[in-house]
């Protein structure tokens, strides 16, 4: 399943990656599963997506909870808690 993933702010800097196109295994259909998948890359990804890390997620530009599902073609995003305003 193909999705695009974006990274913002401190997370983007930590990973040295602003975004990427991913072709995921069929089993990975929720934010929680995707985070575990990215964690397996090790290095900065392992730290950034650690269980305890405060990472927020959006699916198609709407903030979602960790157990939210996504489908092929979706735009996913990970970022730290927001600090605007």
């Amino acid at each position, binding site marked *: 399943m193909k999705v695009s993933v974006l990274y913002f702010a401190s997370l983007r800097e930590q990973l040295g990656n602003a975004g990427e196109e991913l072709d995921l295994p069929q089993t990975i259909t929720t934010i929680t599963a995707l985070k575990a998948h990215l964690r397996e890359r090790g290095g900065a990804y392992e730290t950034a997506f650690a269980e305890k890390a405060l990472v927020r997620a*959006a699916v198609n530009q709407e903030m979602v909870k960790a157990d939210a599902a996504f489908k092929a073609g979706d735009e996913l995003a990970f970022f730290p808690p*927001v*600090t*605007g*305003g």
Partner: protein
Amino acid sequence: MKVSVQREDFDLGAEVKAISGDTSTGAVASFVGIVRDVVMTLEHYPGMTDKALHKIVEEAGSRWKVKDCTVIHRYGELQPGAQIVMVAVASAHRGDAFAACEFIMDYLKTQAPFWKKEHRPEGANWVEARASDDQAAERWKEPGK
């Protein structure tokens, strides 16, 4: 209803005037957030910010009697004293205007995808989210609010 995410500065007085024209509007509550003593860069998630702000404004409109409303949030590099964000809400009465304006700010603080990076002499660092902002947003979930 106007939502804008922009690099440019804004004019609070002009924005408030622009939503005050209805003869049934008796009250406009507004808010301006200002950069304190440090240069900062505001990053945002372009595709999502507009959506998130519209959603917050709609939620405010469903809870209070709002005649009109403007939300402007800037991004890019901002100097100390610069305006960051403004919210203005026009209503028939002040109670609705104040509540909706504060609600929009509280939700924006926890729901709109903006991130501040501060540039201090000792280096740049990302501002951490404050627990008090989560609490401010939470209190609108109490019944009766």
